[in-house]
């Protein structure tokens, strides 16, 4: 496993596929656009989950957030043991400079996973069970946190965590 993974298919010398398609790439613009788009992702998440992931404060909305202590999460998500191998697969280290990245110091990242949320029906005529009625907003479609939702939350929490 310690071998470089794709050596079975090294890039042939002088491969025609190695080429730039649209001229020079402006690294600074790339990084500016990256930050702007990440910020918009955070904003979207904030609206969707009515939770300010930067200050870690619940906002008014469909989800009722409450802090949960001692969440019974599988160890995989809590310990740092699983991390090393994950990064190796991508071939290369995650850059740690951008605050928008979720990779950080492992143990700390997961401490604040202990926030759970539930969807609260706003009014009796729009019960939470109604699966995707025409007027249902996106955030209301699901009544239960699914794995991906949870991951979404985690990501943002980590994001905020890394700010000093």
């Amino acid at each position, binding site marked *: 496993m310690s071998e*470089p*993974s*794709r050596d*079975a*298919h090294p*890039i*042939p010398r002088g*491969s*025609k*596929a*190695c*080429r*730039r*398609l*649209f*001229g*020079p*790439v*402006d*690294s600074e*613009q*790339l*990084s500016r*656009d*990256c930050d702007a*788009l*990440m910020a918009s*992702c955070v904003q*979207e998440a904030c609206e969707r989950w009515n939770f300010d992931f930067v200050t870690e404060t619940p906002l008014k909305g469909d989800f009722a957030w409450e802090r949960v202590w001692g969440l019974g999460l599988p160890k995989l998500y809590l310990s740092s043991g699983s991390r090393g191998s994950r990064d190796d*697969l*991508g*071939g*290369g280290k*995650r*850059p740690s*400079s*951008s605050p*928008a*990245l*979720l990779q950080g110091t492992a143990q700390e990242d997961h401490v604040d996973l202990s926030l759970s949320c539930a969807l609260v029906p706003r009014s009796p005529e729009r019960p939470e069970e109604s699966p995707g009625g025409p007027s249902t907003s996106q955030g209301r479609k699901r009544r239960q946190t699914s794995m*991906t939702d949870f*991951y*979404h939350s985690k990501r943002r929490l980590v994001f905020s965590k890394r700010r000093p």
Partner: protein
Amino acid sequence: MELLCCEMDRVRRAVPDANLLYDDRVLQNLLTIEERYLPQCSYFKCVQKDIQPYMRRMVATWMLEVCEEQKCEEEVFPLAMNYLDRFLAGVPTPKTHLQLLGAVCMFLASKLKETIPLTAEKLCIYTDNSIKPQELLEWELVVLGKLKWNLAAVTPHDFIEHILRKLPQPSEKVPLIRKHAQTFIALCATDFKFAMYPPSMIATGSVGAAICGLQQDEDVSSLTGDALVELLAKITNTDVDCLKACQEQIEVVLLNSLQQFRQDQGDGSKSEDELDQASTPTDVRDIDL
């Protein structure tokens, strides 16, 4: 000798799962969810200002070359194109970012579908080092965020086995039909015309086009013409006329790409041997229409 072969086969694959392939509920579920993963709009008209259709073709062609050279699994390329289209349908992007995005999408699709995924470093080399691995990784998160982490998109490949097993083909012809159909699917992914078609229609049209094309040389099918199209349409609940139109478009795209290839011929450096080993679809140049 056998032991040696085993050791050399570095790619681990699951065996075909009869529970998944021979259960109609799976096909029905695929048909139900496939539309969720289509790009939300025809983005050249309503989102992009800088990016033109020919640029999508350029980046798609490049991505296909990389996937072929790296012997990626067949699904990687169409899946990466699905990510690219969905991202571009939502985010106005300058053309200078397009190749980076293509690389990011291959990176993600490869991680989802392959046991030994493409590395960031390798993808950067394929961009002639115009981007750095760090940029690739940063943009990976951007793309993931914009795709809402919905990566397990339905692709035309998901339908191929379901379609093939319902056709009355002699079983020895199936591998060839499958291979040609896979080539057509890759071809469709390079052409924006097909980006908003349901994957099931592309799959059905590709199988139809493969059988029709092969039929000219050898007897691969007891069913032909309208009877075949009708059976295919029934399998994936596709409208017969839509399916015919789709199949014709696939054949046009194939002809165009063959012409393009003949123009480019002379600088083709791939050996036949190399093509045979590819797990990516047969190169279009292998097909006689």
